[in-house]
Structure formats: structure tokens, C-alpha cells
């Protein structure tokens, strides 16, 4: 299945791209999608690792189809074909 990702602020800068399309296996979770994203953009490894260390991640807002992951099943929430994930950095840039 295909999932679209949009990166905001520092995350966009670190990835070198504001958008990405991920090809995931059926039944993948948000955590699986984020792992695939870091695989695609190694520049995100440190930032994502730091920001998404906790579950729910505290340094980053993860929105799945407009809903914050903490309002679903955190990073264990399953993603669907055609879903959109938006990542918003919380700590950087007050």
C-alpha cells in the first residue's frame, strides 16, 4: 500500500524534502511507517530518534489523516492505503 508523508519545519530541512510517498506492507503501523521514512531519509535518523523516543512521541506531533496519534493508538495505530501522515516538530522553533 502507498502512504503519503508531509514533513514540517526542521524535519523537512533534515530530510531535504517536504513530501514523500512510502510503499508499505499491508497491516503496517505508524511506527512501521516512521521506520520506513527514516530508511528513506537517513538525515532524519538523529532528529526522529530523539523526537520520537517516547510513545507517544513528545518532541513531535504525528498526525494520521488529520488525527494526532495520541488520540488513536499512538504509534501502534494501523495505517491504510492512501493515508496521509503529517509530522510537526514540537520542540524546535519557539
Amino acid at each position, binding site marked *: 500500500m502507498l502512504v503519503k508523508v508531509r514533513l514540517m519545519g*526542521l524535519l523537512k530541512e533534515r530530510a531535504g524534502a517536504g513530501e514523500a510517498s512510502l510503499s508499505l506492507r499491508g497491516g503496517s503501523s505508524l511506527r512501521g511507517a516512521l521506520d520506513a521514512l527514516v530508511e528513506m531519509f537517513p538525515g532524519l535518523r538523529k532528529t526522529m530518534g530523539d523526537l520520537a523516543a517516547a510513545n507517544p512521541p513528545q518532541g513531535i506531533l504525528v498526525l494520521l489523516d*488529520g488525527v494526532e496519534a*495520541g488520540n488513536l493508538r499512538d504509534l501502534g495505530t494501523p495505517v491504510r492505503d492512501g493515508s496521509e501522515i503529517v509530522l510537526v516538530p*514540537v520542540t524546535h*522553533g519557539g
Partner: protein
Amino acid sequence: MEPPTCTKCRVNPSIYYRAYSGERLCAGCFRESLKERVKRTINRFNMFEHGSRIAVGVSGGKDSLGLLKLLVEIEEETHGSEVVAVTVDEGIRGYRDEALRLVKDACSSLGVESIITSFRDLFGTTMDEIASRGRELSTCSYCGVLRRRALNEAAKGVGADRLATAHTLDDMAQSVLLNILRGDTGKMRTLDPGGIDLEGFVRRVKPYCEVPERESALYAYLSGFVFQGTPCPYAEEAMRNDVRGFLKEMEAKRPGTMFVTFNTGLRVMPTMRKAEAIDHCRLCGEPTPGNICRVCQLLNK
């Protein structure tokens, strides 16, 4: 999976779970609740008067842009105060250039007057120059002191009687813990979100002090603000970063920790408050509790 219905309007699907209160909010109720929170904070700490002229320190980051938007809306509905955006250009190539563009775009879309002041104009130097010199203190120590002076000068320059900054709940809780860890009881009194009237200073208020940074980020995203991509190249507040990480971890495990920490700081603050005798700096004439102000101490080193 489908999200639960909003616990406030009971109509729309929720988009955000507020762990410290148990609320699940739709986008509209989230935005409205944040505005109500800021209104309550303004009243709780008697921040403004009818007809105040409020200078808002706007850096171009998500917190200050969100605060600017909310204050414009709230003041139109309540006190009728004028809002002016004041921005400090510290002279950090790349980082500040991007932020200045974001401020200009946001002010233009909100219809807010925008004033920019610079370290170059006020102090004859820039953060890039200060960072390249041999220093005893961290770049953040210089930047913090000079920014406070610059914001005060800009606020005075636009005839403001209040200077609003976008310190979030996270910033305030971090400051409480930092002051304790450093044993700096004198600084506890500067945490008063309603500010203090001191000769020569525009009263500083912090209307965002009860807004978690996480909610500030969500509000900025929902408002369509562009998030700054370039990090400050000189950011090196090691101790604050440690405290930030600790508090975020505690908040995740025990929701409400940030509020408890901040409110504890407020409770002990009156015992730390003392009458401050204000003199004038012998070098620049600006108000200071000592003979030489901190700005002159730093720039003459």
C-alpha cells in the same frame, strides 16, 4: 480506525487527546479552548487594560506566531487593545533571514503592524560576530541578554505599555526547575507571567504561559503557519535541554507534570520577591539594579 467523538461539542470526530484533562477535541473545539485558556490567563494575571498598546515579541517561530494570531482575535473581542509585532534581528545569517520572511508574511496576512530592530543598530555588532570571538559565556547567554534589551527598546519605540512574549508552559516549567537546580532563587520572581512595573521597562507579560508547547505546535499547524526549518546554529543551552528532556519524559508518564511544576513555581515566587532598587547604568544610562547593566558588562568583555 475512527477517532472518538469530541468530548466538548459531542458532534465532530476528535483530532487531539489532551492527556492531562482527559478531553478529546475536534479541531474547532481545540482552537476555541486554546483561545479561552489564553483569555483566562490574561485575566488571571491582570495582564492588560482597556486600550493597552501591546508589543508582541515575534521571532517567526510557531509559538510567537500563534500568540500573535490569538492576541489579535482576543483583543478585537475584549479590551480593544492595539497589537504591534516587534522582531529582533540578531544577525544570524540563514537562520534569522528565514524567520524574518515568515514574520513579514504572517503580519501581512493578520493585518498587524510589524517593526524590526537589530543588534547591529542597537549594539553595533551581530550574533555572528559575537560567536566568532573568544568568549567566557555561551552564545545563548549573550543572545538572551541582548534580545531582552532589544525587545524593550523596540516596545518603547512603538509606544507600547505591555510587551508580550510567547513563553509556553514548557518554557515556564523548565525555568522553575532550572532556577532550583542552579540555586538561583532571585530569578524565581522574574517568572511572574503578569510582569512587574519597573521604571524604564515596558511591563513584560506571558499570555502563553499555560499553553503546552505541544498544543502551541498543533495550533500553529491548524492555523496554516509555515514552520521555520533552519535551527539556530548557536543553540547550546545544555542544561535547559536536559531539563526539557526530563520534563517531557515525566509529562508522558504522568500527564499534568508541567502544570504542577509551573504552579509550584508560582506559589513559591512571592517569597522570593523583593523590592528592586533601580539605578541607571553608568555607561549607557539604561535602568539596572547595579552600577553597570548586564548588556554593557557583556559587550565590554
